[in-house]
């Protein structure tokens, strides 16, 4: 009942519309790829499916960052670490599924361990041959890291820029660690050459379609979760913490727990995004931990509009589509464009595309109301607006 109540509060027109669009894409794109013959004009090529599947994962990642940055005001510059950890958990499952089909044909050990002359599986690889365990770890590992990190950071009131910098240091340290061969995660080659997921070949069109749909469904669930959370009393508390942390504390709330909750929830979402990303691109390596990647996530969110729900999704898809398009014909121009985007968005579009659009819409409505009042008509009663999309 509570869930239903929350959902009703959170579901405004825009959210329902975006959910419908996401699910429609999730069904239509793979269907058009699989069911129509290659020559059909509406046929979606396989590479587009892979590309859009990637974008959907990025969108979920951007949404998770939006939860901490847009709603609670924590700018995490290490969000890519949670994404990569989720990806590694999934990658470890996929590595175990290769079994004796590896280059060295060892029934248990992944190739890189045979190459390093290891005799047995390290303890942290146990259990990853089962999907349920790997799926659990996809959420538990990033969540646990976020919990420990956030517990220390928020309790000692590390805020603002300091927090951003130490989150960046966190992902940098993890990157260095995963680059080490003897960490047992494949060193700088990472994990790749995947064969099966749940018994189906990762290369098969049907598997790709299923993964695409799973990504869309995960994104839809993420949207539902964030909108419900944002509309709840807890969501109001999160925004209070963002806008006036000290005041919230003086009223008697514990901002550190609010932050911790949002941080852990966002980390879990990022982990799921990473887990869906890895089987679609077929590789996970320590480069995903690079601080630059995490900052790129921030720019997706900023472009779309932080503190909105569909903003980060639009931002992630737009920026990445722009990246794919630009790197196609003028690779050296991409960094100029990305850099310019950073500057332009912070200077001219501080609320992002969606935030500005909402402002414009509101302004237009106010103007209309004002005119109506001038003409002597009664302004419609405006109740307390649900501010989920703000």
């Amino acid at each position: 009942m509570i869930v239903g109540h929350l959902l009703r509060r959170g579901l405004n027109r825009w959210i329902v519309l975006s959910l419908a669009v996401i699910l429609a894409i999730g069904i239509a794109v793979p269907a058009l790829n699989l069911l129509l013959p290659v020559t059909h004009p509406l046929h979606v090529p396989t590479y587009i499916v892979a590309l859009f599947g990637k974008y959907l994962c990025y969108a979920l990642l951007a949404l998770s960052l939006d939860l901490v940055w847009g709603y609670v005001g924590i700018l995490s510059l290490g969000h890519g670490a949670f994404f990569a950890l989720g990806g590694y958990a999934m990658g470890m499952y996929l590595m175990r599924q290769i079994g004796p089909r590896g280059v060295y044909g060892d029934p248990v050990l992944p190739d890189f361990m045979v190459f390093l002359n290891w005799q047995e599986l390290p303890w942290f690889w146990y259990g990853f041959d089962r999907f349920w365990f790997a799926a659990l770890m996809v959420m538990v590992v990033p969540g646990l890291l976020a919990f420990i990190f956030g517990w220390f950071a928020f309790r000692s009131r590390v805020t603002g820029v300091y927090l951003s910098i130490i989150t960046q240091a966190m992902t940098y340290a993890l990157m260095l660690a995963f680059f080490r061969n003897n960490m047992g995660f494949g060193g700088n080659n990472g994990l790749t050459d995947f064969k099966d997921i749940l018994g189906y070949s990762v290369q098969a069109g049907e598997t790709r379609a299923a993964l695409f749909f799973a990504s869309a469904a995960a994104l839809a669930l993420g949207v539902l979760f964030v909108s419900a959370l944002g509309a709840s009393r807890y969501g109001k508390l999160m925004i209070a913490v963002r806008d006036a942390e000290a005041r919230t504390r003086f009223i008697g709330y514990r901002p550190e727990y609010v932050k911790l909750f949002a941080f852990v929830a966002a980390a879990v979402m990022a982990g799921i995004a990473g887990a869906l990303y890895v089987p679609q691109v077929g590789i996970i390596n320590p480069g995903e931990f690079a601080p630059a990647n995490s900052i790129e996530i921030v720019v997706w969110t900023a472009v779309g509009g932080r503190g909105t729900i569909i903003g980060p999704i639009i931002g992630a898809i737009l920026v990445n589509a722009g990246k794919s398009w630009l790197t196609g014909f003028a690779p050296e121009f991409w960094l100029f464009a990305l850099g310019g985007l950073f500057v332009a968005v912070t200077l001219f579009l501080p609320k992002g595309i969606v935030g500005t659009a909402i402002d414009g819409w509101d302004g237009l409505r106010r103007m209309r109301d004002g005119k109506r009042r001038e003409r002597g008509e009664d302004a419609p009663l405006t109740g307390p607006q649900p501010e989920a999309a703000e």
Partner: protein
Amino acid sequence: MVFIRTIIAIFLLVFTALLALPAGAQEDDSALRQAISGLGAEKGYSKLRQAIDVVVETGDPRGARVLDALAEGDVYRREGDGAVFIVSGRGKERNLIDPVTSEQVGTIAKSELKKVRVNNSVRRTVRDAIGALTLGAKDPDIRLSAVRTMIDNPDPDSLDVIATALEREGDDDVRTALEQARAAAILLSDAAVPDKVAAIETIREMGGQEALSLLVRARNAAGAEMRDATEAAIASVQKRLQYWSLGQNVWYGLSLGSVLLLAAIGLAITFGVMGVINMAHGEMVMLGAYTTFMVQEIMRTSFPGMLDWSLPIALPLAFLVAGSVGFAMERGVIRLLYGRPLETLLATWGISLILQQTVRTIFGPTNREVSNPSYMSGAFQLGELSITWNRLWIVVFALVVFAVLLYAMNRTSLGLKMRAVTQNRRMAAAMGIRTPWVDALTFALGSGIAGIAGVALSQIDNVSPNLGQGYIIDSFMVVVFGGVGNLWGTLIGAFSLGIANKFLEPFAGAVLGKILVLVFIILFIQKRPRGLFALKGRAVEA
């Protein structure tokens, strides 16, 4: 700057003096050549021994090389004119090497050569002769290096040579080395126990890695009565070596710390004093390094004689280039974002991407070569430590930059205004300070210092468009660790992180050591969110 120029000038003088030296040594070539040709002329071993003595009498250490080759059987006489050569190579065609200059002078068929034969008694003469030649050289450095080879390869048979050399020797350093060589030889000879104990004592005092290997050899060869003394000496030498390795870690740590200090000190101004998060700080360092590269290229093509001056010329230029880019950044972007630190962070990150890509487009993505000037290449030995000149210069340079900056912040009018604006902007404005102007100048100063750091870092790091990225996280760590708004904190932060890193490396490896330091800082910030030397009072809330 004047200080640095003076030092550079002194170095240039010393180097020209050194270059002038060998000219005098060329004169008695003919005497040596004459003596060496004697080696091929005579028949019979006793005549050959006399010829060797003639070579020794020239007193020219270059004669040692041909004698050495003689003992190895590499000296031949050319059939046609009886000239003597050192011959290398196998097969029918052999390489002729001039015995005096050691340069290859041509090739010759094997059949035209006649080997100068030696027997054991000649070899013994040769060994003594080489010792006498090199130990009798006029230049104490040559004598010293000759003795050093004797220490490394001790031979009981050379005791007599050492004894005669000791009698003649006037130079204290060479004397000490000779005594050590004698001790090393005694250890391997069948001398009496008291002599050997005394020898062990000498070797123990010598210390170092060679002493350790000598003593280990002696222990393996020694009888029961010597064992305890040798073991004790080995333990003592090892202990001393440990202290040296400690000292070496400290030195490496100081060296790394000075690099961190250089990279972070500009940030200490922009971030620490102004509170602006400049993610493009690393790119300012990179611009400084590329300025150095440009200056060096221009010097190389236009004024090759003044190549050594490229660093002093690059310093002010790098300051200007990076400083003006910083000035433009502040006026163009950062000015509009004051009070929004997270947005500043993103915008400056964007600028850093643009700067990187610009440099990559202009100079290409590969590493550019910036060579060390003569006064910064090479190394010198301090005890067991080998200290490279460029590292030493960078430590000195970092400290000088720090001192200058400290002076600028605390003693100049601009520094006063900077501090006033950062402490209370509105009050400073009310007193007539043009705060926007001060903001821009402060930012330009911080960026300019980063550019200067780039000049120094171009000497030890690869000059590539990614140069700055490698330093940005470390620099932030240093500033955050040391405490924001405090230059002393940056100094202490840089050196303690540098030393901690180098002390962790032997146990944990380079990468893990770095990770441990990062984890430590992350934990440290939890405990002291405002760094080691936190500002107190009202300024904290600003």
